[in-house]
């Protein structure tokens, strides 16, 4: 089959699914809707596999397939066509998107079986896959932006899926608008790229890059990178635009798994990795990215420790993990960032789906304080969740370990990295271990605190299969990127497949520092020890009912209140940005529009009517007066004529 046809089909399947389910959105037949939706994405997945196989078949170094579907915008020397590029980066992405996507679709069939509008749900989900594919496959920034906005739109629609709840609708709106702020910056970045390079195609940009890096903040490439990064903070929920992601948990749980953990939120990472060549030329922006990433990772982790809503914890954990990825790209570790993106997609999707399974079993109960001891009711869920837990806290040989470890190593050793950032990253890893263990402990272990009228039960097969598959992936997914340090000692010398695969398009920063293999081993074991310690502590605290946590939070006082309330960031935004803006707008309307501009025009009209009122008396209907005016006028004219002559 030709590439064009394959690409078209790749897009057409989800689109058809969207249209099919969208037109019959009122139908309550969740099975039909679910099967069609899942099949659409599944078909896309198959095509992705075929495409990737084709890509692998190509010669190394020339692995890219470009397909031009149709001309889109061609004005003057600006051209952005609907053309697509499949290269190693987008190959990884489309496999994740369609693969994890179809698992989540499958899971959704069971999850949405009691919902009123399953067709609508699946149509949105398919539309999301379509847009996400656009995002990762676009061969220029504008097509990427189309997908970028499109996934934002789907996210808006899906967060506000249960729109009768005003809060959920508001969460959707918040997500869209926050994303829009990022998008606006993205657009500026795009314009800057266009003015600098005269093109927005990735391949042309790469070939036009200058040889030397810029220093300072005013360079054109630096500015372009900066604005694109701001765009990425919106989509990938980084400081200061992360606020929408925790609220986004208002959507159905599989949505959180797909959009707000596995795929959409990683678009920012994808963007920066895609433009890694350009970012390497802007070291200041790289530093900023690393700092922002580290801070986001840290603060989100602290918030996660105090949350009690199972989904909120996972949400903050996602923000934190995304922070990791930004830290990675910030220090020049692009391949580890992609690696972590992939492993994170597996284990976080797994955990979200697991939490969905739990919530489903608990009849929409999300508070972990009302759970506990679910292990015996839901063994499969528990087991897969356990795998996810081990993966995220980074226990070898599960997926998370390899990616996280590599990020920390690069942070430590990269010339763009620093020890401080490494410390922050390590602490975050410890905190991650802590809050994840807390989540496990409170949910699955210990005594049951489930209320009497709720009878937890294991989820149906359609929901457990995705869990199992993702569990397997979370376990073995890391093995494609085993660092040299370890593979060196392994039998058969398993190479770092991922790095090798991405090498033609993305290159990590060269490690030039004095760090040695011994340092790497030390660092790795140190973090391992800390993580295990933290997990153990958390287990002791929460599974074994301890009073220490409450004592600690009391001891910390205001700090812990601040953390529990998410540092009052939402409140700050509301009171310092949004409300003043609304008040100011009201002021503009009432004082400028109604009271100033209109008043001024009234003044003009008052002047006119005033004049009329004055002159009106001349015309009082007295005919003799009129005759007088006539004669006086006549006389005046006559006088003028006669006097003049």
């Amino acid at each position, binding site marked *: 089959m030709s590439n064009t046809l394959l690409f078209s089909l790749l897009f057409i399947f989800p689109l058809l699914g969207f249209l099919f389910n969208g037109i019959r959105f009122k139908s309550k037949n969740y099975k039909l809707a679910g099967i069609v939706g899942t099949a659409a994405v599944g078909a896309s997945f198959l095509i992705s596999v075929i495409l990737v196989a084709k890509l692998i078949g190509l010669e190394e170094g020339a692995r890219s397939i470009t397909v031009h579907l149709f001309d889109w915008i061609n004005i003057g020397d600006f051209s952005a066509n609907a053309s697509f590029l499949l290269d190693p980066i987008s190959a990884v992405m489309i496999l994740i998107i369609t693969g994890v996507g179809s698992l989540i679709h499958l899971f959704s069939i069971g999850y949405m079986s009691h919902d009123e509008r399953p067709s609508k749900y699946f149509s949105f989900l398919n539309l999301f896959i379509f847009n996400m594919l656009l995002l990762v496959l676009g061969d220029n920034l504008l097509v990427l932006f189309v997908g970028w906005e499109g996934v934002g739109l789907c996210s808006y629609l899906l967060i506000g899926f249960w729109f009768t709840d005003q809060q959920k609708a508001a969460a959707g709106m918040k997500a869209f608008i926050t994303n829009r702020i990022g998008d606006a910056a993205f657009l500026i970045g795009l314009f800057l790229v266009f003015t600098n390079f005269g093109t927005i195609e990735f391949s042309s940009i790469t070939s036009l890059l200058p040889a030397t890096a810029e220093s300072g903040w005013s360079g054109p490439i630096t500015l372009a990178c900066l604005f694109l990064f701001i765009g990425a903070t919106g989509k990938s929920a980084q400081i200061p635009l992360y606020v929408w992601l925790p609220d986004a948990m208002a959507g159905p749980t599989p949505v959180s798994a797909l959009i707000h953990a596995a795929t959409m939120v990683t678009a920012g990472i994808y963007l920066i990795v895609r433009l890694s060549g350009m970012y390497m030329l802007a070291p200041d922006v790289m530093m900023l990215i690393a700092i922002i990433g580290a801070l986001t990772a840290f603060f989100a982790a602290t918030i996660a420790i105090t949350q009690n809503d199972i989904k909120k914890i996972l949400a903050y954990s996602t923000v934190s993990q995304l922070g990791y990825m930004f830290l990675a790209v910030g220090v020049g570790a692009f391949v580890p960032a992609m690696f972590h993106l992939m492993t994170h997609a597996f284990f976080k999707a797994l955990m979200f789906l697991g939490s969905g399974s739990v919530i489903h079993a608990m009849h929409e109960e999300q508070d972990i304080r009302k759970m506990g001891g679910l292990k015996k009711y839901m063994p499969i869920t528990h087991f897969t969740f356990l795998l996810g837990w081990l993966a995220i806290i980074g226990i070898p040989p599960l997926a998370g370990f390899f990616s996280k470890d590599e990020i920390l190593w690069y942070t430590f050793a990269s010339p763009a990295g620093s020890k401080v950032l490494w410390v922050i990253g390590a602490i975050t890893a410890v905190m991650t271990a802590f809050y994840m263990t807390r989540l496990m402990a409170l949910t699955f272990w210990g005594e049951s605190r489930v209320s009497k009228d709720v009878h937890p039960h294991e989820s149906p097969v359609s929901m457990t299969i995705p869990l199992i598959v993702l569990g397997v992936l979370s376990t073995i997914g890391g093995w494609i990127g085993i660092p040299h340090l370890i593979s060196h000692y392994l039998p058969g010398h398993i190479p770092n497949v991922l790095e090798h695969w991405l090498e033609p398009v993305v290159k990590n920063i060269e490690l030039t520092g004095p760090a040695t293999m011994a340092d790497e081993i030390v660092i790795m074991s140190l973090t391992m020890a800390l993580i295990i310690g933290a997990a153990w502590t958390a287990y002791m605290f929460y599974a074994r009912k301890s009073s220490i946590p409450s004592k600690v939070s009391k001891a910390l006082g205001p700090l812990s209140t601040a953390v529990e309330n998410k540092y009052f960031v939402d409140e700050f935004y509301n009171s310092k940005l949004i409300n003043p803006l609304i008040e100011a707008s009201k002021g503009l309307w009432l004082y400028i529009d109604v009271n100033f501009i209109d008043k001024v025009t009234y003044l003009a009209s008052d002047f006119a009517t005033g004049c009329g009122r004055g002159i009106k008396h001349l015309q*009082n*209907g*007295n*005919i*003799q007066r009129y*005759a007088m005016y006539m*004669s006086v006028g006549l006389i005046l004219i006559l006088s003028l004529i006669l006097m003049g002559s």
Partner: protein
Amino acid sequence: MLNFESLAAIGLNHYLIVSAALFCIGMVGVLVRRNVLVILMSIELMLNAVNLSFVAFSHFSQNINGQVMVFFVMTIAAAEAGVGLAIAVTIFKRFKEVNISFFEQLKG
């Protein structure tokens, strides 16, 4: 400055000045009187003033066309008096008085 000879020999000027005076008197009447009938009379005066100057011109230029015009003016004057008086009668029927100010009722 006053030329008594010109006073003695009656020329066109004399008639014209009389005509002008008559016209002005009529005009004053139109402007200041309230009674519609008197106003109509004043209009007749003005028309007569015009006639006078026509006749005078005709006489002094030995041109009969002026008198033709006077003839026409008289006809029009008669017609105007007829209509004016008819309107006055209507007004009188309504208000029992023929004050010009009642014509204010005509305003929009």
